[in-house]
């Protein structure tokens, strides 16, 4: 078996989180091998809308991450080429009635205390911001910090900008984790051979649970499916990321049933992206007409003009969901040398830079930008193993 020059760290996953881990680790002087069974941005990253949001997050550890990431994305926008399509466009959350407006006001007040910039927009000023919005909405809140990138380009350009310290191995599936006598990480086994490094970062996104299992640890990452509906290319008809107030409740929900809320945004390339649906149906990629019907109805409800244009295509993606809606970031105390950077649910594009920065600081014993205890990877209790067939049931 060919031996290859070992790296300082192996990152499993070439989505935006893996790319950010590689970028910040390389910036810190480490040599990195990024390995992915598919292509760059071939999983959830490529199926995302590229939202960098603070508006949808309650005060707490995830919002702290999002605020740090917001600053890092602004720095990255100066480093990465323009075709990552970074746009600090701002988010606009709208409410249809007064009760919804009161809920938004309360939510925004709590976010303000946590460092989020918000601005109340009365119903009669909404059309100054979004001329095509439906009439009769009660009002909304503007979140100037909300931004957007083109996620697949962002992942690819992060890897490119990481430079010579990063080696990329695509189309190579990790089939095992190599450990030493004391159980410490020595690298990974792939279909093509062995790759050696004293650290392995699990950036396998929705498939991070399976990678954790290869390392013998429990990390219950589950897929939460969402569809994006894509219109034909249009001029700028939607200026901000615009979404209905019930989106925040859907994001925070743990329900397995189908939830949809209207989320609409334009892109520099022209198409308008329409979301958002959430349902827990495993890795089922079957097209759901019911979801598309609800997405289209929600979008045309907010922007009637979209009823006059065509939807060109749709695609599903699988958000990597952990039961408490927080990602797993940092060293795994159960396996020396194993770190996790996965489970970001629908916020992975936004949270990628801060995740990469934390991982790089963990690898270099640097100062962490925040307390990462809420994200510790061993916080979930493994289910009791099922009794072996034929064994006695518990007394």
């Amino acid at each position, binding site marked *: 078996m060919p031996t290859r020059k070992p790296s300082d760290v192996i990152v499993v996953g070439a989505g935006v989180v893996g790319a950010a881990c590689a970028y910040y680790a390389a910036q810190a002087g480490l040599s990195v091998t990024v390995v992915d069974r598919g292509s760059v941005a071939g999983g959830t990253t490529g199926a995302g809308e590229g939202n960098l949001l603070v508006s949808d997050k309650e005060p707490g550890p995830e919002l702290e991450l999002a605020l740090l990431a917001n600053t890092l994305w602004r720095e990255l926008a100066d480093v990465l080429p323009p075709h990552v399509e970074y746009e600090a466009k701002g988010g606009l959350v709208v409410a249809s009635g007064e009760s919804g407006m009161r809920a938004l006001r309360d939510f925004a007040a709590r976010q303000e205390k946590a460092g989020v910039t918000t601005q109340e927009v009365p119903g009669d000023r909404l059309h100054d911001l*979004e*001329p*095509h919005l439906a009439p009769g909405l009660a009002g909304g809140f503007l979140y100037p910090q909300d931004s957007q990138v083109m996620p697949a380009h962002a992942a690819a350009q992060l890897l490119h900008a990481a430079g010579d310290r990063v080696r990329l191995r695509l189309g190579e599936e990790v089939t095992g984790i190599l450990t030493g006598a004391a159980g410490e990480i020595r690298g990974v086994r792939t279909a093509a051979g062995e790759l050696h490094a004293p650290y392995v970062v699990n950036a396998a996104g929705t498939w991070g649970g399976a990678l954790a299992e290869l390392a013998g640890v429990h990390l219950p990452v589950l897929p939460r499916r969402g569809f994006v509906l894509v219109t*034909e*290319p*249009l*001029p*700028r*008809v939607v*200026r901000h990321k615009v979404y209905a107030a019930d989106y925040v409740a859907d994001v925070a929900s743990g329900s397995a049933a189908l939830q949809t809320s209207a989320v609409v945004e334009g892109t520099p390339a*022209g198409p308008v992206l329409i979301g958002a649906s959430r349902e827990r149906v495993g890795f089922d990629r079957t097209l759901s007409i019911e979801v598309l019907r609800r997405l289209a109805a929600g979008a045309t409800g907010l922007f009637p*003009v979209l009823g*006059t*244009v*065509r939807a060109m295509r749709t695609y599903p993606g699988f958000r990597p969901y952990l039961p408490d809606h927080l990602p797993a970031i940092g060293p795994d105390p159960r396996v020396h040398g194993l770190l996790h950077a996965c489970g970001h649910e629908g916020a992975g594009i936004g949270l990628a830079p801060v995740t990469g920065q934390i991982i790089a600081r963990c690898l270099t014993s640097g100062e962490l930008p925040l307390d990462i205890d809420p994200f510790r990877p061993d916080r979930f209790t493994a289910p009791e193993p099922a009794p072996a067939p034929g064994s006695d049931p518990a007394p």
Partner: protein
Amino acid sequence: MARTPADLVGAQPDPPFEITFDGRSVTALPGQTVAAALWGAGILAWRTTREGGRPRGAFCGIGQCYDCLATVNGEPNRRACLVPARPGDAITTQEGHGHDRLAV
């Protein structure tokens, strides 16, 4: 005189009719697509690209490549190679996405 495809197959189409391209009269035969009628009149481009404004017309001719988009009777993004020409159709050159009026 050059033989036309209609001669080669011995076609006996119904009488021709008029459509317009950017206001100019073009003769079409029943059953022809908009793209075929325009080609028959020597017109090869009826759209400009979104980036750079370069000319585009029929490429694949079978509805797959979306290069031949035209504005037909005010509706943009019709595939000229699939849309049958109808008497009086007004074809106009589509600039970019064809939705400029929606811009805000």
